[in-house]
């Protein structure tokens, strides 16, 4: 083991990626019955990971070349499949994002999941996720990436299905798993194609070879498209986008962690990971651009029609992922990654805020939350507004900068239709996010008698002290905390603040991250700038574009205000007047129904039925017949008289006979 301690970077990397695994094992094996201890172990592991990730970032921030620790996994002499660690700006950044959000979400879960019977299990799965995600992020080879990619999917299945008592949760978990696996078929095939055609699954090698045109272009296009199928599945792109809203059946922190900030971004991450490889195939890029655009527009429309608070953010996640794919596919490496970063922050924020509302009001419906007095929960309300502003791309929140970056890339694209789509998307995004905000903020009628926990909380005495304490600790606390009167029950004093703290931290991140655009750009592109030829021009020179984008966002907000916010607004929205369109949007453009019908009819209903019927008659029939015999038919060997075995044999003989006949003729 001494080799491990000789190199602090490697030590940090190993600690960073394997501690969560250790914690999962410890929780599952030893501390299943001690929920508090389990959560502390898990949080301890992930916070160590966070520290290690920070250390790695600081240590390696100025290293020019990517740092790689790897051992090759040889299947045959001519095939290299590396495993180990790869640190370059992209993976370091993503590692940090994962560590930060995992940490915050786990802390938040202390409050949100408090008292849940499966508390230990929940933290074990969280650790499993953290481990898988981090190992995926630092993978130096595509196969390692794929393996952990699947493990991430497994963790997601387990976490979505966490509320197993709910039938729909189990279904959603399965749907998510199977649907993403559907995309992974393509991914896996792409990898096999690459192994056979190129022989090296190292990411660095792949990227370099693709740029040096050492791989034939048809191979790049084919494998890039296949690999992109994986992105479609994981990042919920069209047509596999419907699993993500359903995945919201899981606990809200899970949605925040997996289904907005990290796991679903894995697809986009993978895209940017082998960006030069993709970039070597214009066809693949064009298709990715189209799919990203379709996804973004479709899911934005879906978000306009739902009243479920988590669903809105889920659709929004899908649309923002589509937006990232657009940015990347249009050639904006930095723009895509930057939006990924900022989005991770503000979308996690949005989800966690929604989680507080859901926790307090036991409802996912934003009308209920509004009526119940959601506006009185000041911290989450303000934080959520900040998040929504960021999402809408309003200055000076982080979303503004990253959206501008992508818009800039799109504007540089010769065909302006993508830019128009982007602007339309921005308008819709602002509209649906503020539709939600205004519905909670300005409910038509506050139902004060509605029984909910929050009422009790408000009457607690000691909240002021808590808040003061918090104000003293958090520099910007004054902006959010003043006069608010939320609280918590006696004895659960920490519960609310476990949930509030991560919100405040994420809000801060959302507020300041945008100003680090240039240092991030330098960091990300510094070493690869010559490779990508830079992405100069975006943001800076396009004042017209800037104004257009911001005004789109503001217009969306204003529109939402007109329909939902102003006094005496109908709160119905224009969609209510277009019932057909609303039905279309609310039913997810019937994608789900189409897929299900396709699956049900074609596969389950058709083939399985045929086989089942055959099977019943043929195989079960024997037993049925036999049971009949024992009951009353009284015929010896009646199971044979019904001819089941022989019907079976008949099929076999006929099949072989036909084959023989075929060879004769």
């Amino acid at each position: 083991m001494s080799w491990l301690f000789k190199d602090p970077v490697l030590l940090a990397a190993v600690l960073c990626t394997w501690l969560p695994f250790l914690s999962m094992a410890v929780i599952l094996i030893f501390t299943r019955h001690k929920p508090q201890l389990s959560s502390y172990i898990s949080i301890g592991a992930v916070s160590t990971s966070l520290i290690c990730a920070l250390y790695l970032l600081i240590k390696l921030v100025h290293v020019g070349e990517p740092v790689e620790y790897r051992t090759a996994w040889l299947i045959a002499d001519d095939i290299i499949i590396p495993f180990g660690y790869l640190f370059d700006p992209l993976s370091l950044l993503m590692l940090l994002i994962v560590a930060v959000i995992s940490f915050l979400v786990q802390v938040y879960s202390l409050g949100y999941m408090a008292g849940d019977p499966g508390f230990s299990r929940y933290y074990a799965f969280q650790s499993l996720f953290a481990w898988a995600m981090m190992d995926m992020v630092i993978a130096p080879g595509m196969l390692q990436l794929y393996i952990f990619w699947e493990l991430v999917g497994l963790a997601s299945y387990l976490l979505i299905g966490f509320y197993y008592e709910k039938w729909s949760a189990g279904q959603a978990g399965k749907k998510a798993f199977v649907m993403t696996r559907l995309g992974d078929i393509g991914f896996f095939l792409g990898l096999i194609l690459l192994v056979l055609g190129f022989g090296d699954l190292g990411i660095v090698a792949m990227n370099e070879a693709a740029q040096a045109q050492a791989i034939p272009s048809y191979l790049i296009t084919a494998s890039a498209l296949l690999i992109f199928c994986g992105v479609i599945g994981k990042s919920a792109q069209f047509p596999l986008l419907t699993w993500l809203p359903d995945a919201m059946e899981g606990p809200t922190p899970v949605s925040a962690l997996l289904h907005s900030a990290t796991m679903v971004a894995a697809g986009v991450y993978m895209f940017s990971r082998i960006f030069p490889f993709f970039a070597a195939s214009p066809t693949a890029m064009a298709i990715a651009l189209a799919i990203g655009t379709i996804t973004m527009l479709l899911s934005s429309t879906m978000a306009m029609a739902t009243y479920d608070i988590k669903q809105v953010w889920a659709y929004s996640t899908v649309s923002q992922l589509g937006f990232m794919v657009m940015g990347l596919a249009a050639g904006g490496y930095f723009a895509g990654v930057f939006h990924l970063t900022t989005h991770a922050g503000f979308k996690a924020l949005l989800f966690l805020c929604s989680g507080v509302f859901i926790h307090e009001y036991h409802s996912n419906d934003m009308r209920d939350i509004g009526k119940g007095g959601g506006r009185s929960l000041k911290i989450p309300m303000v934080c959520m507004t900040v998040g929504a502003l960021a999402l809408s791309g309003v200055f000076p929140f982080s979303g503004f900068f990253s959206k501008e970056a992508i818009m800039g890339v799109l504007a540089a694209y010769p065909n302006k239709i993508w830019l128009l789509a982007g602007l339309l998307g921005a308008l819709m995004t602002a509209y649906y996010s503020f539709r939600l905000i205004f519905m909670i903020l300005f409910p038509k009628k506050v139902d004060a008698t509605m029984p909910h926990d929050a009422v009790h909380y408000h009457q607690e005495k000691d909240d002021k002290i808590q808040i003061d304490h918090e104000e003293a600790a958090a520099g910007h606390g004054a902006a959010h905390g003043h006069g608010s009167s939320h609280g918590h029950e006696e004895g659960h004093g920490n519960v609310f603040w476990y949930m509030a703290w991560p919100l405040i931290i994420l809000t801060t991140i959302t507020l300041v991250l945008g100003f680090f655009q240039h240092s991030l750009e330098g960091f990300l592109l510094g070493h690869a700038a010559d490779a990508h030829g830079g992405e100069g021009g975006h943001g800076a020179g396009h004042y017209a574009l800037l104004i257009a984008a911001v005004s789109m966002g503001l217009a969306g907000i204003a529109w939402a205000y007109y329909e939902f916010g102003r006094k005496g607004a109908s709160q119905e929205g224009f969609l209510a007047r277009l019932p057909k369109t609303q039905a279309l949007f609310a039913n997810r453009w019937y994608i789900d129904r189409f897929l299900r019908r396709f699956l049900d009819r074609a596969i389950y209903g058709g083939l399985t039925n045929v086989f089942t019927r055959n099977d019943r008659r043929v195989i079960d029939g024997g037993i049925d017949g036999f049971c009949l015999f024992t009951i009353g038919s009284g015929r010896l060997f009646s199971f044979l008289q019904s001819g089941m075995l022989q019907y079976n044999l008949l099929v076999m003989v006929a099949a072989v006979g036909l084959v023989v006949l075929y060879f004769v003729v």
Partner: protein
Amino acid sequence: MMKWVLFIPELYYVLMAVVFFALSLQRKSEPRRLYTWAVILSGVGVLVAVLSARLEGMVFFDAYRVDLYSQVFKLLLALGTFWVVLTCSELEGIDSRQHAEFYLFTFICTLGMMMLVSAVELLTIYISVELSSYCLYLLVAMRRKTDEFAETGIKYFMVGSTASGFMVFGISYLFGMTHTTYVAELMKVLPGMMTEPAAIVGLVLALSGFFFKQALFPFHIWAPDVYQGAANQVTTYIATASKMAAAAIVIRFVGFSGGESAVFIKLLVVLSILSMTFGNLVAIIQKDIKRLLAYSSIAHAGYMMIGILSMTQRGYASAIYYALAYLIMNFACFMVILKIADDGHNLKIKELAGLHKRSPLLAMTLMLGLFGLAGIPPTVGFTGKFLVFAAALEQGYLTLVIIGMINATISLYYYLIVIKAAYLLEPVNPYPPVRVDKWTKSLAIFLVIAMVYVGIFPDQFVALTEAAARSLFI
């Protein structure tokens, strides 16, 4: 002149059979003592197989070849037998008065299969197949309280006999075409004759006998019934050890064609696709977990066939690796079933509810085993599928591989049903806790480690299987 050393593993199993024959003559049957003896003897059997793994040579006037290929499979067989015997501590499915015969037939069956993988002469192959089949017919028919499943034995017997009739008929055509019964000569002559109908029909008919053992569509018809109707231990044995022998002999026989006949390959492709699709689709609706695994085994025969029909060395190696993987994964699943249903009844999926509380270790073993079967990394099943698909893609069977992948996804659905039952469901009525003795515990831990280790570090195993595949055609 005779190098008896080469024959030692088989001789050892003959010895074991003799021991149990003697024990079966005792007036009183003592299950515990028989179990101890069986465990010790079969454990030594594994050791013997390991020690003789590097032997090479020909015995019995070139009718019997000992090489890496055969020894690898012998090791797998010995291992499978040992594992199955190890789980026989509660042999409730078999009348306690017949335990000695149970072990006797099991060991003779293993012996037959060991000879099957080494035999390089058609008559020897035929006799070995029949020897093992007869033992299996008897083992299946042995189940106690068979009122519900009385016809299982006869179904197995009838289908098996018909298939073996096909096989003999096919072998007769092969004999007529090539005038020899020696595999080595057959492999020289036969590829040049693949245009003759009799040669290819003979091969297909002969293969159908082995497809029967492998439960490949359309020779699968016995599998669900037998899996469901046989005693749990016997099902385990059929699902693990006997599948190894079937894979070995199918690889050998498919190799006869030398890849000369495109039609033949097409036939195998079709069989493989049908097998996968049929197995996976029907498995979805199963309630009895053994029946579910039967359909899954049909599907897996299809996956294995993908590697075999590539007809390259890498393809055969991948199929061998897949067989190894299948042995471990499938046994892991069955071991859990055996331990939960320790009174020998047939387990329904819903009876797994809350398993993760009753026995976390078994639940984990089951989960890993099922994930392996579904081909999820980083388990050994993933590596197996990867190798098999890679071998097929190398030969350009893209459609086949895509269908295989889609099937793997479908299969995930029903594996998840089982995993969900084990991990996420709560039992309606509390089931009694599962008794897990220390042998089972250590075996479970070993299996878990093996499934992950062989999956993550397959290089040595791949090298081994490739060497074995090479020795197939020397």
